[in-house]
């Protein structure tokens, strides 16, 4: 009989931890940028210099200058405050509120659940941005009102996820075991349900950061969010879209900033989902 064949196996390494560190660091850098943007800008982002308007990228102005001669790099950095900071605030509000409502509905059930879920259906029935426009219109312009408007249309999604997750957790043996162990409602919610449902919710909110950023920018463009000359990526893009063909750097640099930050937060969201899955930790 011939010798048995030998085959070489390629071993795949578990990359979750590395990815978590890399994307976590990148996201942290973005956050630091948005907090300390005053100290990081090479020029004053609001200083106009019409003699220097619309210069292409050079060593002096890495991203070039806009039509008023303002340094684009400085404006992009300054814009990170408004864009990232307010987006994160918005997502945090929506996640917290939606999760509370969802867990409450899922746990409690009954008529309260029905009423709250019908209300969330109502919010979901309107086209999102149009509804936000209406809310922002009633409340008046400004970044704060734009955040409130977007929060009002975004929470039902989180409430629905939290509710369905809570319902499925309620059916697990371990929750029954916890109940038999004499744990009260609050203990079961905080010790067993929340830690087990927060993963998918966090992932959703991470993946939502990009969308929210764009929607805030959209409202800003319509004059219902950040007001010019405040540096905000979305409004910077829409303000300068007429220059796209002739002076593309003016439009593309805030676009690039949105692209990069949305991508970082999406990848971070994916990684957190992988990391949060207990089955994944088995192999670590």
């Amino acid at each position, binding site marked *: 009989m011939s010798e048995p064949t030998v085959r070489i196996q390629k071993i795949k390494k578990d990359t979750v931890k590395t990815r978590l560190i890399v994307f976590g660091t990148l996201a942290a850098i973005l956050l630091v940028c948005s907090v300390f943007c005053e100290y990081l800008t090479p020029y004053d982002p609001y200083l106009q210099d019409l003699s220097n308007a619309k210069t292409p990228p050079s060593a002096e102005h890495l991203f070039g200058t806009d039509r008023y001669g303002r340094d684009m790099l400085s404006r992009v950095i300054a814009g990170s405050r408004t864009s990232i900071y307010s987006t994160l605030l918005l997502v945090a509000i929506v996640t917290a509120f939606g999760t509370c409502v969802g867990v409450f509905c899922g746990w409690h059930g009954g008529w309260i659940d029905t009423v709250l879920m019908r209300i969330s259906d109502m919010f979901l029935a309107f086209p999102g941005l149009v509804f936000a426009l209406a809310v922002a219109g009633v409340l008046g312009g400004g970044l704060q009102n734009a955040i409130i408007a977007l929060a009002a249309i975004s929470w039902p999604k989180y409430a629905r996820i939290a509710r369905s997750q809570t319902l499925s957790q309620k059916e697990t043996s371990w929750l*029954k075991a916890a109940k038999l162990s004499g744990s009260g409602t609050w203990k079961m919610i905080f010790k*067993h349900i929340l830690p*087990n449902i927060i993963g998918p919710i966090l992932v959703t909110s991470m993946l939502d950061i990009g969308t929210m950023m764009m929607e805030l920018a959209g409202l800003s463009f319509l004059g219902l969010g950040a007001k010019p000359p405040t540096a905000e990526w979305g409004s910077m893009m829409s303000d300068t879209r007429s220059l796209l063909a002739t002076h593309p750097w003016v439009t593309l640099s805030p676009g690039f900033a949105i692209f990069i930050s949305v991508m970082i937060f999406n990848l971070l969201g994916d990684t957190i989902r992988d990391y949060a899955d*207990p089955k994944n930790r088995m192999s670590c």
Partner: protein
Amino acid sequence: MEPLLKVNNLTRIFTRAGQPDFTAVNHISFDLYPGECLGLIGESGSGKTTVVNMITRLLDASMGSIVLDGEDITNAKGSELRKVYRKMQMVFQTPTESFDPRRTLGDGVGESLRNSGMSREETKREVAKLLNDCGLTPEFAERYPYQVSGGQCQRAAIARALAIKPKLLICDEATSALDVTIQQEILALLNELRSRHGAELSILFICHDIALVQQFCDRVLVMYKGNIVEQGKPNDVIRNPKDDYTKRLITSIL
């Protein structure tokens, strides 16, 4: 002797819009005496899990009453129910799913002790002792459910159930999801616990294998389509089965 558990006329009817009512459990009555091990046998869909869910108050009964240790628990709720659970505990079918995947086995075993106001250190000592009683080393308290085998996890689940010294232990298909060899180990552990606790521990043993019931139980109830079709000592039932379903159960043993 007063029965520990007295189930009288217990019924559960499931109603769904647009569908005829479904009677999962149909007017069943039985008693369980202190120190006794009572087998409840039936195929999937026979209603045995519904019976268990009603006894443990995870599901409301449509009719009938459940009396545990002289106290009517049919409608027990809230803090009253938490007191009931100090007398009644349960071991579930799938061991790894009966522990919170994000908490250690020790957390799960000690949860009832912590809830009854025991200090952290004392709970830790008690958990180690309980695990030891169930054939596990204290290190298992630090493990997560996915880090242990099914048999080890079920041992921990039994330790958890015994933590507050219940009078009634309900084993809902506690060995069905395990390998036959592990099944025997778990039965040996339960037998050992029974001889150690004597009349202090009664067991309601839910199962679909009559050979296991013969091996382990003092008395058996055979359920079929929501009714108790036969009851008696396992050997009597096996020797002289009256119901067609019981006959099928016996002849199907390989």
